[in-house]
């Protein structure tokens, strides 16, 4: 969104050009024809649902029966629901650990594939592959790699006497969340690597020249040139990691359904269970609203904190 706001300002899109009344009316007509279909579809299935999520949180609905007003009862339930609080905690844990797992590694790999060596172009092409796979497909793939006794990792553990590899990675309460975080990282690090690759390539060589003239060594060049120059990449990537993992659902649903116990029951999973399993859609809408607000707040906070909005003329960009 921030990128778009910047675009608004940069191109001054949205400031109607002056013209006579007939021309303006004709323009308005063309806009109406050009934009309205998009807006209708988007309005019906994105804008209205966003508002409706909040409205539904003040109702009770179980699909079969009629919709009834519930006042604040769903909300007060949320504030005293230990399961929801636990879910909130697991969600934050997942988001924080995902950030730790993804951002530094993605930065290192992004800088690596920003290099112009031919082998790195080949590596970069292969690094992207996880992003092409459906979450359902890659989850099932990982499930079998990690399967205790018979999976690929367990096989290595058994044949090379590394017993620690032969674990119940997905089924054990102490390992499940960790395993989920690793699989999510495997899926999304390539995406963030792309961001850092573009950011690294946009740093002018002159900055490294200057650093070299000043006698900077490798480490100093990284801390004083690369890292500050990558700040917008870091903000973009961190925002997307945090927002993405606060709302994460797919892999958890496919592999654990929130279990074992409720060790991986993140907020989105909690919402699904409350809504689509227990058919308490009013209360589930409270959780959904919290989810949405959390995501949007994190995005805004990061944008504000780091001055993302003032990034015009930054060094980032691809192509």
């Amino acid at each position, binding site marked *: 969104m921030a*990128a778009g*706001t910047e*675009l608004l300002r940069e*191109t001054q*899109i949205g*400031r*109607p*050009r002056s013209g006579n009344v007939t021309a303006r009316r004709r323009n*308005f007509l*063309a*806009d109406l024809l*050009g*934009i309205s279909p*998009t*807006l209708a*579809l*988007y*309005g019906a*299935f994105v*804008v*209205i*649902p966003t508002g*409706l*999520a909040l409205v539904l949180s003040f109702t009770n*609905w179980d*699909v079969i029966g009629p919709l009834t007003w519930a006042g604040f009862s769903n909300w007060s339930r949320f504030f005293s629901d230990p399961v929801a609080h636990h879910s909130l905690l697991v969600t934050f844990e997942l988001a924080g650990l995902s950030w730790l797992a993804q951002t530094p590694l993605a930065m*290192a790999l992004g800088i*690596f594939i920003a*290099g*112009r060596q031919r082998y*790195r172009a080949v*590596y970069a092409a*292969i690094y*992207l592959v996880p992003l*092409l*796979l*459906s*979450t359902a*497909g*890659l989850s*099932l793939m990982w499930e*079998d*790699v990690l*399967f205790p006794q018979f999976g690929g990792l367990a096989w*290595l553990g058994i044949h090379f006497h590394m017993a620690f590899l032969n674990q119940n990675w997905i089924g054990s309460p102490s390992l499940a969340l960790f395993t989920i975080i690793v699989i999510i990282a495997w899926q999304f690090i390539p995406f963030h690597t*792309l961001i850092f690759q573009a950011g690294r390539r946009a740093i002018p060589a002159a900055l*490294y*020249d200057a650093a070299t*003239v000043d006698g900077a060594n*490798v480490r100093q060049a990284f801390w004083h040139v*690369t890292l500050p120059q990558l700040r917008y990449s870091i903000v973009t990537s961190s925002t*997307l990691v945090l927002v993405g993992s606060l709302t994460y659902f797919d892999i958890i649903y496919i592999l654990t359904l929130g279990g074992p116990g409720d060790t991986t029951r993140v907020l989105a999973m909690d*919402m699904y269970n409350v809504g689509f399993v227990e058919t308490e*859609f009013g209360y589930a809408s409270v959780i*959904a609203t919290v*989810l*949405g607000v959390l*995501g*949007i707040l994190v995005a805004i906070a990061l944008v504000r904190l780091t001055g993302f909005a003032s990034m015009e003329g930054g060094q980032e960009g*691809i192509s």
Partner: protein
Amino acid sequence: MTTVPKQVADTPASRTTGRQRRRARSEALSGIKGGSKGFHVISFILGTIWLVIVLGPIYYMVLASFRSGNQYFTANAWLPTGGLTLSSYSAMFHGSGIGTVLRNSAELTAGTIALVTVLSLGAAYRIVRRGSRYAAVSFRLILFGIAVPIQAIVIPLFFITTKIHIYDKLYGLTLVIAASLVPVAVLLMVNYVRLIPRELYDAMAVDGAGQWTIFTRLVFPMARPVLAVVSIYAGLGAWNNFLLPLILTQSNNDMVLPLGLYRFATNSEYGINVPVVMAFVFFTMLPILLLYMVLRRQFVKGIGGFALR
């Protein structure tokens, strides 16, 4: 003082500086800020480790898919020794109802691509021309959608689709998925269409071309590269989508691939046969992987979405 630069230019010290500068430049291009060979070697090794991590599970899956149910338990898990077979693939074609699922996914993907590209190009053209306040307000509203997590609106989506009777219909699912992809698609399009020089519009207007002619003869042909990018973005979003089909469809007739895959793997009859599941998974990945080999550049931009500009 004025002669100093000349003198400096001839000293060995300055030549070292020049060499350093050249090296710095090549390092800057190479992406490594290290000067030493050792640094390159370490980078190579670490980069290769990640390559193995990326390819390892995929290789394991492909290998497992060429085993029979029995071989899977006895044969080497990582080396293609001990006999390979296509039996899992034939089992997949016979037992999984893959035909319907495949056709549904193809329809969903084609429909989504068509909707998203046509709608977002039309909107982007009018937004870039900034003819009225309506265009400006619409653009702001559409950008807001990028911040809305889809997980937060699945319940209202379920509510709406059941109320207007497009629940458990493939076209209903297509509409919802297309709508969810609109914000980023419009942003990608606007980013591209705004690069068309205003002189071209003006020249066509002078020749008496109307808005529609300008759209079909200028904007559409010029936007072809970004149409490919948006198509890939929309296509992947539809082909791989799991959450929306899970929420908005129910019957086997409307089942799409990712959901079919999940149901198949959790089905007690087939799900325990790992090689067949792996064959199914690999089979659904194959079309995308093949396309990726041909259209790598467009994929990078389509996947990068709005994060890469």
